[in-house]
């Protein structure tokens, strides 16, 4: 018997998640969704795209939908992993094998991210190929948009996995979705309300720890024909995501290691 490397155990745990994703109904819902979108785009192309603004609008809509669908799938997949395993007791034979609980969570994380990324690539590619491109579109910016999208999926998977070891599944899905789509607006609103008062500083301090998913959405920047982010700014984004991921992963691993099963 070989000594199992952590990479192999993490890979095997993740493979299970990917098999589950491919064999569940959600993926078919997304495929139908993609087919409907593609049909719509084809109709528009047959009728004709009257001006570049319409093309830009359709591309923006398509990429935004792809990003949203990928986030929805990632949240749903990540949020149900541990509760499902606990409820069905499938977790016991897995954790009876020579793997650590941290490796188990890491395996779940990469696979949830990969499942979301796959949806992003497929739906994004459909949207991207369906619309004529303006000359202003930058290929480097497209790469940055995709990388930022995947980083965002990784972060959301880490947030949802952390939520899954702390709170009930339904609450976790709702809260994670709120953080992803409304976190930025909510923190902005709260900070505005307390501005000038004694609570401003602590509120700003607290809200700074909420991951800002708006920063990771570069779709509109790409479709507006704006150039790529400077390398320093892009690197800072990667560091920002790494810190959030590290904090979420470390917290969930710590909580899960101490949890009685």
């Amino acid at each position: 018997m070989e000594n199992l490397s952590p990479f192999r155990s993490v890979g095997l745990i993740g493979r299970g998640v990917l098999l589950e994703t491919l064999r569940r109904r959600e993926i078919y819902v997304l495929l139908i969704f993609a087919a409907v979108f593609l049909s719509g785009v084809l109709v528009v192309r047959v009728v004709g795209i009257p001006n570049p603004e319409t093309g830009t609008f359709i591309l923006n809509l398509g990429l935004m939908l792809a990003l949203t669908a990928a986030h929805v799938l990632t949240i749903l997949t990540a949020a149900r992993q541990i509760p499902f395993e606990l409820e069905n007791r499938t977790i016991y034979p897995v954790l009876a094998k020579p793997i650590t609980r941290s490796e188990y969570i890491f395996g779940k994380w990469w696979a949830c991210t990969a499942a979301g990324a796959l949806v992003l690539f497929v739906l994004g590619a459909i949207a991207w190929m369906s619309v004529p491109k303006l000359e202003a579109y930058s290929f480097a910016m497209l790469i940055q948009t995709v990388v930022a999208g995947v980083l965002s999926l990784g972060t959301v998977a880490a947030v949802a996995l952390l939520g899954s070891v702390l709170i009930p599944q339904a609450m976790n899905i709702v809260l994670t979705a709120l953080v992803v789509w409304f976190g930025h607006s909510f923190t902005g609103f709260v900070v505005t309300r307390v501005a000038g008062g004694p609570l401003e500083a602590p509120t700003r301090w607290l809200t700074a720890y909420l991951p800002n998913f708006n920063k990771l959405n570069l779709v509109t920047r790409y479709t507006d024909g704006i150039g790529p982010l400077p390398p320093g700014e892009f690197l800072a984004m990667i560091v920002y995501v790494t810190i959030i991921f590290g904090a979420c992963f470390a917290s969930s691993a710590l909580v899960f290691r101490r949890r009685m099963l």
Partner: protein
Amino acid sequence: MIESKPVIEVKDLVVDYGRGKKTQRAVKGITFEVREGECIGFIGANGAGKSTTMKTLMGFLFPSSGSATLFGRDARDKESRRRIGYLPEVALYYPFMKARELLELYGGLSGLSKSELRRRIPPLLEKVGLAGKGEVLLRNFSKGMQQRVGIAQAIIAEPELLIFDELSSGLDPVGRHDLRNVLVELKDAGRTIFFSSHELTEVEALCDRVVMIHRGEIVTEATVDELMKPLNVYEITFHLPDGSRIPDAVRGHGVKTDGHLHTLTITDVEEYSQAVSELAAAGVSIQNTSSKAQSLEDYFIDLVQSRERETAS
């Protein structure tokens, strides 16, 4: 004789559920060990603390005090888990996986290479009675088939120690028979087996030793022979004419008298033979001899009921 090494060591183990006023003590300071090559039955009524003890051994629950170790290490240590196979109580397996994929996952996590897995899986499925079911999704498996695949995942890496919680749960008589053959094979191969079961005939037939737990405390720990010996009861009924006395040689045994009929009750087979000879030598007319063999199940039920009566009073 070289004494075998302890594989499982449980010392003064206490496990509590909940906190503060809601704390419930599931295991109350138990101590026992399982040695290399032994087959031990861990028996007790529902809620006695069997699964809690096993889950603590596996590192799923944490001791409130005391310790539970496997191969001298904490159960959460990867090294100790590399050497064990575990079947959980009432487990379901990933419904979206095929039986082959599931065994590839668990075998892979145990460190088996892909080529080794390809070699081992078909005969293993055959051994547990699932030949030809490798490509069937587990969502289509019955409870008994799930239990069989559970046994397969526990033994796929040929571990030194097997821990089975509710071994024959969900299995029909044929399944239990097949499983018994698998266990005999594993036992003969020198594996250490520690299992809980409500099928006490299975425990009686397979185990070297039995550990009985009741309300979180160990109430009996003995070899099956030690336990079964006093459960065999021999009775000799004889007739004494008026004025005769019971021969001195048999007076030491319990004698019940009903008019001219006397009944001796003996638990040891040799003492029984001796008593028959002595009565015959004394010219006593023996009316009847009988033997009653109590089962482990009878013993267990008596024990649990008497403990419950003690608790109630």
